[in-house]
């Protein structure tokens, strides 16, 4: 008997705005199989899972459950058909007990505490979880929270459980336990999808592996057919390999003194002992997976994040500094261009001129009483020309610009401050293709003027094309350093994943 796939996607496309997160993907999940999804950041793994869990709906294509075409309008519809998703950030209610969380959404009008607790204990025992059902969910460790979520899925008689990077926060023993559990669930016929950046896990525990790249399903096959090198090859593709061997650009002679040196920076659980140096006239790439602590370390340097600061030292031009607020860092000549311009990049009710002008005001406004509007407008106009920002006029709201031109405005707002060091965090994200090259040129030109540049990017071709030196962050530390000549997509990715 040929088993019917419990979930199958046919030619599914999901677009956000005009970018496709998933393009024409085909995917089958068999009952009782453990299926690993691997791929780079933004390859479409999460989108694929969210489609199955009913969190998002496909723009095109068909989703079938048990061979029946379905259209989910909410995650509730999916869970009614036995599909449960366990997110990276757990969705437990911290103020409720473990038992109440397991029962969440299934409460009757009158709940007997004892009934809820004993039923929860049964589920937990069946899964061999050592969690006290009367404990508050908020007091549990990350691993136990995840277990409770899985228990909730089992309690809800899930037939398909989707785990989004389940092992990211777990210790090796906890990881082992999780995979034991997955295997016992599998025996009872539950199909499991798990997203992982740890290729060894996928190779060891999955029955089948699917590799996504740029929203496309590259390959699917039995885990036994793959090895680490093959997976990485599928993740980055052929064209990248060649790009990785770009002719080495003229490298300015490195000055002896770094612009910035950080040593043993620690912050919460995101940054663990990060140390590196940034040299003038050089673009230093900071590659790594999302969550490897790159933006966080930048925000610590800027003085933007202070809570959970766990120590470490920072030198700017040989002078030890420690900023309490970003204004001090800006005054000393550091600028940070954030990864999400809408969230903390530009001022969307203000004009292009005001946006750029505010950058000048922040650095050179000093104790001025009156805003020199005419001067700010002239300067803004200069920068609009220098970065060739295409707009109908500097008095227009910045919101009317295209993504690329918005990003240039944000860059102008920082470069007008004449900084010594600029940290570009994903500078070409959500930017039209034409503007990407221009923005990279702006970054190059700025570095050539003798300033230091940190380029944080999750997009390997960008790192390989633009950077003179590449640092790879992994779990909050610098895992590797490559010169431009040594670096290749494969070597960076190999250092970035576990």
């Amino acid at each position, binding site marked *: 008997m040929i088993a019917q796939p419990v979930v199958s996607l046919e030619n599914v496309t999901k677009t*956000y*705005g005009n*970018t496709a*997160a998933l393009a024409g993907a085909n995917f089958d999940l068999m009952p009782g199989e453990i299926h690993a999804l691997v791929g780079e950041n*933004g390859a479409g793994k*999460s*989108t694929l899972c*969210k489609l199955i869990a009913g969190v*998002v709906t496909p723009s095109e294509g068909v989703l079938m459950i048990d061979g029946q075409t379905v259209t989910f309008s909410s995650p509730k519809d999916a869970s009614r058909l036995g599909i449960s998703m366990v997110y990276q950030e757990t969705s437990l209610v911290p103020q409720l007990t473990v038992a109440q969380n397991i029962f969440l959404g299934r409460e009757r009008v009158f709940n007997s505490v004892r009934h809820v607790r004993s039923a929860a204990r049964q589920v937990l025992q069946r899964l061999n979880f050592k969690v006290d059902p009367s404990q508050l969910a908020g007091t549990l460790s990350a691993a136990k929270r995840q277990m409770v979520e899985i228990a909730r899925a089992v309690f809800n008689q899930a037939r398909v459980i989707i785990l989004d990077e389940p092992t990211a926060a777990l210790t090796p023993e906890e990881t082992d336990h999780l995979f034991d559990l997955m295997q016992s669930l599998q025996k009872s016929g539950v199909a499991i999808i798990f997203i992982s950046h740890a290729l060894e896990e996928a190779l060891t525990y999955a029955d089948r592996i699917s590799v996504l790249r740029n929203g496309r399903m590259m390959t699917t096959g039995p885990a036994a057919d793959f090895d680490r090198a093959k997976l990485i090859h599928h993740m980055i593709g052929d064209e990248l390999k060649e790009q990785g061997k770009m002719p080495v650009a003229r490298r300015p002679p490195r000055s002896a003194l770094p612009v910035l040196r950080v040593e043993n920076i620690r912050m919460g659980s995101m940054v663990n002992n990060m140390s590196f140096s940034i040299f003038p006239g050089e673009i230093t790439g900071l590659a790594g997976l999302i969550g490897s602590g790159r933006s966080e370390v930048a925000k610590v340097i*800027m003085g*933007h994040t202070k809570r959970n600061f766990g120590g470490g030292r920072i030198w700017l031009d040989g002078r030890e500094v420690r900023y309490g*607020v*970003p*204004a001090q*860092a*800006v*005054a000393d000549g550091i*600028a*940070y261009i*954030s990864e*999400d311009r*809408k*969230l*903390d*990049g*530009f*001022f*969307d*009710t*203000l004009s292009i001129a*005001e946006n750029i*002008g*505010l*950058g000048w*005001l*922040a*650095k050179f*406004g000093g104790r*001025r*009483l*009156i*805003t020199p509007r005419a001067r700010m407008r002239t300067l803004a106009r200069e920068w609009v020309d220098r970065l060739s920002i295409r707009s109908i006029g500097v008095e227009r*709201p910045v919101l009317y610009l295209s993504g690329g031109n918005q990003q240039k405005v944000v860059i102008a*707002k*920082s470069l007008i*401050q004449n900084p010594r060091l600029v940290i570009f965090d994903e500078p070409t994200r959500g930017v039209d293709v034409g503007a990407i090259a221009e923005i990279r040129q702006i970054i190059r030109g700025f570095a050539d003027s003798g300033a230091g540049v940190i380029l944080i990017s999750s997009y390997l071709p960008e790192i390989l094309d633009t950077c003179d030196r590449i640092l790879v962050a992994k779990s909050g530390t610098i895992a590797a350093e490559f010169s431009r000549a040594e670096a290749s997509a494969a070597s960076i990715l190999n250092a970035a994943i576990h």
Partner: protein
Amino acid sequence: MTATALSKMVGSREGGILERVVLAVTFGLVVLFAVFIDGFATTGNLRVVLSNSASLVMLSCGMAVVIISRGLDLSLIAQMVAGATIFSVMVSGGSPASVALLVAIVAMALVGFVNAFLIAYVGISAMLATLASAMFVTGVFRFAILRGEFILLLPKSNPAVMFLAGNILPGVTVPVALMIVTLIATALLLKVSTAGSVIYAMGDNYQAARLTGLPVRRATVIVYVFASITALLAGLVTSAASGAVDFRTVSSGTLLFDVILVVVLGGIPLRGGRGGIRNILIGAALIAVLRNGMTLMNFTTQTQDALRGLVLILAIVIDNYLNPRDTETDTVGDL
């Protein structure tokens, strides 16, 4: 076509549909009241409306600046009565009016500074910080100065009090003159000073303003101290006109409510980043006309409160509908 003509008249640049609606409603009410209420459309009544709304406009200037910076000041009314109390106690005790004024200004600026400190440095939400300081200030003043009473009577014959309640020019009362001064100061602060640029920037996007290196903490201090001073001025003219400082204005909440009403109805969104004195004037005009008309029609205060509540909810619903949250920012990170 009428809408564009109207917007040109008002000089509206962006959005501003709510303020146009409010303006139209105000005109409608004026016409309605003039036709149906005896004594509404008289110069005497106009002067009463103007004088009575002076303190409301002053308070609204303070509140508008705070809200544009994406804050909120629930302690304005408490500061208003506290400032008036300091001033009256001192002039009753024989201090010169200038000294009393100076002490009151310093004391209120201190309250504003503490508010700003709690918000910008300690990181407490503006609503909670100012609510707490309102309760604290009211409590301390009623305990220490009023000995548990609600009302402090002013020395009516004191020249300073007489000055505040009188005319500065023929036909122009001191409250109206102070109102105009406050409006000008607000316009200068918002549109001319560097602090104003920072206030709009932080109201638009606080994190971006902070990361750009703008002095957001200093601006927060300026905002709340400015609000405190407007509250003090409002307190001085109100108490001089009525001959008493009445702490029940704090507990009844109606005035605070009216102030927020003025700001929101004028078209200054609670999200901050937008608005100016034009919006304050539009909002204040509606509330002043509504107040005056309802009083002339002998509505009870309860009915007036109920009607105002209705108007506020309506305005906020319209505001939410006209200025929806940017849905694109909500989906960032889905890719």
